[in-house]
């Protein structure tokens, strides 16, 4: 199985598993952008809205049984996906026991760049997201190098903040701007199942390099939102161009078990106002609340 995962996962330097591409996105950084969502994430956040991007397909074939369009079939023991037949009903990803999707594509840097190239006049940049793009760091470095060599498009990374910066210096160096999550100060393990992470150090490092476009915190009760917002806000006060986005956790589109986990943790709008006021009081210049 390990070998199989290697074949499909981030270890491939020249290929990556792409969950989705949005050719024109207006929510993944400034302006109109080409957004790439990689498969695979190193976090397991309890409020994740795209859990199908977390894991890797194990070809268990369970999804074949639930596809109403017969868009999924079995070829040599592996899942084959027919995009033309798919109606995006998401039955397959709801069935998947591995938090994966059979609708991914393995793409090379050149294949991805060809698509970017064809929409170049209409976009101002590309954004890689996920899953977690740092898991594909070698691929992203190659992609960004190509984009920068052949265009003046900006290159953004949207990350969960759980990476070791000392191992990622080359990617940080070539990336124009980051959008990153600061999920919690003390409850990361409980919230995201991640140990020994250093998102605050990473934020500090990226801020000093003027590489931060936006920081996001999902506000969820019982997960030290106040301390998280206060800490991040203190760091952002000297960076007037950086947007701080406070997102009220919500359950729309979530699976039943996830809904159950967070149903008592949804903050009211008064709490959101308090969080915004706190950020502003601490000196953040640009605060955006998503209710």
């Amino acid at each position, binding site marked *: 199985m390990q070998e199989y995962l290697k074949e499909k996962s981030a270890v491939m330097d020249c290929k990556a598993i792409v969950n989705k591409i*949005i*050719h*024109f*996105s*207006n*929510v993944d950084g*400034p*302006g*109109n*952008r080409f957004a790439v969502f990689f498969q695979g994430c190193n976090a397991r956040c309890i409020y994740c809205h795209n859990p199908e991007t977390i894991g890797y397909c194990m070809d268990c074939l369970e999804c074949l049984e639930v596809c109403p369009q017969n868009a999924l079939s079995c070829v040599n023991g592996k899942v084959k996906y027919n995009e033309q037949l798919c109606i995006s009903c998401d039955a397959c990803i709801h069935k998947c026991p591995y938090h994966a999707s059979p609708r991914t594509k393995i793409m090379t840097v050149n294949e991805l760049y060809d698509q970017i190239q*064809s*929409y170049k*006049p*209409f*976009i*101002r940049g590309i954004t890689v997201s996920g899953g977690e793009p740092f898991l594909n760091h070698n691929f992203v470095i190659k992609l960004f190098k190509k984009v920068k060599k052949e265009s003046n498009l900006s290159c953004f990374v949207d990350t969960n903040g759980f990476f070791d910066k000392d191992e990622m210096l080359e990617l940080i160096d070539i990336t124009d701007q980051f959008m990153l999550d600061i999920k919690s100060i003390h409850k990361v393990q409980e919230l995201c199942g991640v140990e020994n992470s250093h998102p605050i150090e990473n934020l500090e490092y990226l801020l000093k390099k003027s590489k931060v476009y936006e920081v996001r915190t999902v506000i969820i009760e019982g997960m030290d939102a106040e301390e998280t917002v206060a800490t991040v806000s203190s760091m952002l006060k000297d960076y007037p161009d950086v947007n701080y986005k406070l997102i009220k956790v919500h359950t729309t589109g979530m699976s039943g078990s996830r809904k159950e986990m967070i149903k008592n943790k949804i903050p009211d709008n008064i709490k959101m106002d308090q969080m915004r006021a706190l950020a502003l009081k601490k000196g953040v210049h640009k605060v955006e609340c998503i209710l």
Partner: protein
Amino acid sequence: MKSTLEDIINTAVSDKLTYQQKLFNLANIAERLVDPKKILGYSEKEMAYIEKDMICDLNEGYAIYRPRYIVPDYMAFLKHGCRFLDIRPPEDLEELLDNLLILYHHVPSITSFPVFIGRLDLMIDPFINDEKYDYIRIKRFLNHIDKTITDSFCHADIGPKATRAGEMILKAIMELENPTPNMTLRYDKDITDPDFSQKAAEACLKVSKPSFSNEKMYYQDMGEHEIVSCYNALPSAGGAYTLPRLRLGTIAHSTSSLDELLNDKLPDVSEAMLSMMDKRIKFLVEKSNFFESSFLADEELIKKENFTAMFGIVGLAEAVNHILNMENKDEQFGLSSYGDEIAHKIMKKIQTIVNEHEGVYAERTNGRYLLHGQVGANLCHEDNFNTPAHRIPVGDEPPLPKHLKQAGQFHKYFESGTGDLFAFDQTYIKKPQAVMDIINGAMDTGYRYITTYLENTDLIRVTGYLIKKSEAQKVTDGKAVLRDTAIMGEGTNQNARVFERKIRRNGL
């Protein structure tokens, strides 16, 4: 199309038309009562193409007494005043706005309302000296236009440079939410300040105007020009005598192959339409005495030498789909690269025929009439099967990135104007810069004109003109409404489902 005496009675007793609409409709019916064969010399063949709905004369009439589109030189009016109206050049903003409202009343067109009311920001900006009170005056002026020029083919231009007046105009149109005047930002990314263009994009999302015209491209093709009516680019201090259109869908349906269409039918119908245009223009210039009796001509606010004529087309999509069907191809216009090839063959054929024709009284455009991507109308059953210009029919639209690229390749043919429009979802109101990226891309890839609006707004662009959906609903309910364009828009929507355009979000 010829009219009948019955049309007069029906119009007179209508319970849905206002007095003013009846008056103008009766005048139009009168123009169409006379026999075009007698007064203009139309041939039997030319008449047959009208009667078969292959050529549409947009009910321009046959006893012609004014050019279809008149584009006055308002700067000359500001500088010299007007002897006929006994108006002196304005000395302050109030005089300027008053003078303009007076002149608008005397600018004819096919609608009897002015289709061009000037480059408002350029005219107004030198007179601004009190931002607070001048803003109130500008807003009142724009509102006055909306309530008295009751036809939203009335068009104002702003830009390409940002001005204080331009900023005030953008603010006022967003507050007023009026259909009239239609408006264009003449956009050149090397000249137009990005903050100004972004504000214009925001206004365009909220109130469906201003649209964006490609100033560089039009200037290269046309020289001194104005954007008038829907999105027509016409010579300054002149205009266009006439605009008939080919219904390409209807023409194609009478053929059984691409070869027959290109080499037989299309040349024959095109030649007939060109001949009709010649005859119309000759009557207008030589017999109607328009240029002899108009003070606009006498005082050189317009010059006969600056007029041209527009050769319109609609239904490229249906023509291509018919050929694809004939060739048993399971493809459709908008999603088929082979379909695009067919479309180019059709357009190149028409372009060659039109360019080789020696037009009359068209020296401003080197004796050539100019191709126009006409926005459509609702005049006969066949208009259900002829989508505006080269557009993809509503309901068949591909995802936005593909749609943008498909549409842009046809703009080059239409020197006197064409345009594409895209409806965006609410997320774009927070990101007008994303809309500007799309507009910049469009201009860089050969678009002449692009516009947008936000889903769920009342004020929307039907094809090239603006109406309020709430007004169209009144028409559906059988009530009289202020603007004739609401009546037209309602009819067009019934046919072409323009209120149901695909809403663009997440790149779809």
